[in-house]
């Protein structure tokens, strides 16, 4: 078990080490600068820190990567959140005339939290998760990733494990960052199928015709439903839980036959859902049940706001010690949240001596301090379990970098044209 027992009381000692030697600052800065296509993008970005004793500070902003590093190493935040890119430097927002300081752009984000599934989870509740209910996150990621790419045309998605009970998605495309509040809320509502609070029993309502998006989502859910709901969650194990399933509107005439089948033979589930093809009046009760148990539950309010602050990737979760690491979608089926390294583990791995490093040290002494520091840091995290997650982040950045190149070329092309127009104009004026 690569967890190396984590104790929250050790955070004050571990965090300084983490920020000095392991946090991937250069990749982080590269990400948030977005290739320098827009001026001051990084400088106008809001960060918020939660410090020791729950002290919360907003409107932090930094001019360079170096300043970011120094400040984080000095303040040692327990939690780091990322906010919007504003019209002015957030750290100077009080000096700006009221009304002119505005949030301009931000990634489109989604937050899937396991507690939102409590009414359909039998294995855990509240902040707990286990390998059984983790399947819900896999389903959520597959459905949302497909929709955001294929339906909405986004390309640069970063999925991050939150550190305890959920996942976040950062959509980083240029078009996504420029979306208005109305557009963000429309996207979130398009992606929402499970609606209703404590007082609503039937949370999914389907009617004819079934939108292609729902069909795509159903095919994902169906793939996992048998394993997840029937086997792992065991929704048919007891009369009580079958009753709960049956409390959802199913035509009464099917109740008895359903009970018989479901009580005795679980593998007849597929037969059951095929044989009852009721199409009149949109009676898609079997699909609705599957969706109610498995379809992703988003918090629309998180996605709506341009100025909403969300936990930063590579932030530490103070309660579990786990690092918020990027998730590699190619390895999604084998991703195990309990294998995600904790801060205590990686700090411990850092301390272990490695033979082949002794020689490199001599060479490095000649370089300047910052580069040396950076190189040391790269060497450092590569020795720890954090390495493979930083690689995922690197690949994500590389893919985006190619699009930045395109943007820069376009922009410089524009500059050239406008400059030549200017010259022509000047030549007319002076003849």
């Amino acid at each position, binding site marked *: 078990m690569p967890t190396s027992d984590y104790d929250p009381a050790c955070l004050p000692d571990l965090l300084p080490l983490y920020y000095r030697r392991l946090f991937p600052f250069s990749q982080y800065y590269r990400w948030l600068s977005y290739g320098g296509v827009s001026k001051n993008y990084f400088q106008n970005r809001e960060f918020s820190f939660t410090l020791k004793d729950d002290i919360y500070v907003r409107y932090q902003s930094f001019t360079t990567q170096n300043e970011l590093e120094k400040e984080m190493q000095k303040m040692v935040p327990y939690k780091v959140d990322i906010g919007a890119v504003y019209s002015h430097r957030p750290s100077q927002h009080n000096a700006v005339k009221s009304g002119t300081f505005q949030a301009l752009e931000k990634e489109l984000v989604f937050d899937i939290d396991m507690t939102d599934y409590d009414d359909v989870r039998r294995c855990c509740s509240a902040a707990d998760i286990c390998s059984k209910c983790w399947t819900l996150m896999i389903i959520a990621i597959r459905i949302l990733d497909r929709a955001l790419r294929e*339906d909405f045309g986004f390309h640069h998605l970063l999925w991050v494990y939150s550190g305890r009970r959920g996942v976040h998605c950062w959509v980083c495309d240029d078009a996504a960052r420029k979306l208005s509040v109305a557009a963000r809320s429309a996207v979130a509502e398009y992606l929402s199928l499970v609606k209703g*609070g404590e*007082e609503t029993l039937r949370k999914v309502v389907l009617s004819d015709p079934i939108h292609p998006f729902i069909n795509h989502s159903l095919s994902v859910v169906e793939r996992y439903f048998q394993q997840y709901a029937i086997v792992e969650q065991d929704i048919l194990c007891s009369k009580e839980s079958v009753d709960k399933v049956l409390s959802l509107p199913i035509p009464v005439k099917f109740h008895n036959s359903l009970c018989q089948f479901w009580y005795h033979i679980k593998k007849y589930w597929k037969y059951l859902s095929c044989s009852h093809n009721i199409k009149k009046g949109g009676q898609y009760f079997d699909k609705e049940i599957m969706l109610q148990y498995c379809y992703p*539950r988003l918090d629309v309010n998180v996605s709506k706001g341009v100025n909403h602050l969300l936990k930063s990737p590579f932030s530490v979760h103070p309660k579990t010690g786990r690092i918020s690491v990027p998730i590699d979608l190619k390895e999604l089926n084998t991703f195990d949240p309990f294998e995600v390294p904790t801060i205590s583990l990686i700090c411990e791995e850092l301390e272990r001596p490695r033979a082949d490093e002794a020689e490199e040290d001599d060479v490095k002494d000649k370089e300047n301090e910052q580069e040396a520091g950076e190189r040391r840091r790269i060497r450092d995290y590569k020795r720890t379990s954090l390495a493979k997650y930083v690689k995922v982040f690197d690949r994500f950045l590389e893919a985006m970098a190619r699009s930045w190149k395109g943007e820069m070329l376009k922009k410089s092309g524009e500059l050239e044209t406008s400059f030549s127009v200017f010259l022509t104009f000047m030549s007319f004026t002076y003849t």
Partner: protein
Amino acid sequence: MQFSGRRKKLIGNFQNDLYDQCLQFYGQPPLENISLTEFETFAVERLKLLKTVENVGVSCVKNSEQYTKKLDAEISRISEYEKRRKDHISHFILRLAYCQTEDLRRWFIQQEMDLFRYRFNCLHSKHKTDFLHKNNLKYETVSAEEKKNLKDKLIASSYGLSGTKVEEHDVYKVPFQDALDLVRTRKVYLLAGNAYIPHHEIVTIVLNDFRTRLSKALAMTARSLPAVQSDERLQPLLSHLSHAYVGQDYSIQKNIGKISLEQIDALSGKSFPLCMRHLHKALRENHHLRHGGRMQYGLFLKGIGLTLEQALQFWRSEFVKGKVDADKFDKAYAYSVRHMFGKEGKRTDYTPYSCMKVILSNPPSQGDYHGCPFRHSDPELLKQKLQNYKVSPSGINQVCPTTSTHLTRFSTVCVKGFLKLNLVEDAGFSLNHPNQYFTESQKFLSGGRDIKKEVDMSQRNLRSSLEHKLQYFLDEIQELSDPA
């Protein structure tokens, strides 16, 4: 626009050109002179129209037959030219009144959009195309081959679309950002960031254009407002116009400090509307409420007269019984209570939510207890709850229609609940705010049915003819919202 005492008459030809279409984008402001009386009258009538659009939109599913019939009935019959001229002028007058705050703008844009959509849908198909041409609206169409490939998907995503329709008519392709209403309700096919819109849905794209233009125009109007406001004849009118739509917003607490915390449990049983009673009970049982619930209930409590100190004590004492210790409360939750009272952040003194806001915004999800029970709860659970609250069975049947329908007037039903609870035939008020329910209930229970008297008193206080007019149409609107 120029304001003079005299009215200029227009030449015949000019008339025909300017108003040759019954619908317009309001790109150009009117250039004629009108009298102050016309200024007043036009503005009030358009406001009445927009308020009607709003009410019909809440009680009927928008664009359904019932909705269209109702709106048809409301649009008065005068000469077509006069109608269009009035439409043009009154729109611009109301822009002046409604450009000032975010809330006003949002309301104005929403109603103008609904009105525009209704009118556009009334147009004959040929006129629709004419309108597009006249206003230079050109949208990208999908090639025949792409249509063929996507035919099934298109049919499955758009209501009322058949195979033949896809083949015969154009399908438009726009970036999804330009078709948000369709995206939000998932009524359109999306591929690679584009929305594929069938011809009969073109109104959505046009509406989007309309909204964008109007939004920009309002922002510009706001900037030039100071010049208009300096005209003393107009200033009082404009400010009356912008307050008229809100009605009482309970932002000014009348009974500050008159309620004690001990009274709240009893009051919740007697005078709280069902939504607040529900929230109160959830808070007492779980010793916690999520953000949506805290806002809806907290602001309501502020509206009935709780002071900031009382509110802090109330919330802290309840949360502390649960998983939150006093320290954590002070750090995490006290800020939000103070924020509600306008003591933090940008110091906005938030107003308690009206019924419309509770019903239409921020629907509850898993773990939430806010919202309107008549709108957001399962009928079965609602019945059970009413039984627990000792409403008679016949009363319950009246309050919970067995057919679940979007057309239920939720606040009407809430008032019916009040009637059943208090065994009264006629409530004497039409509900649009939870705090109004509380006030009326308290009034009723203290024996004073002084509602009629209050109206007379206020009428005596009205001075200007304009205020009379506004009061008149407010009354007419109330009538409209009463159960048919």
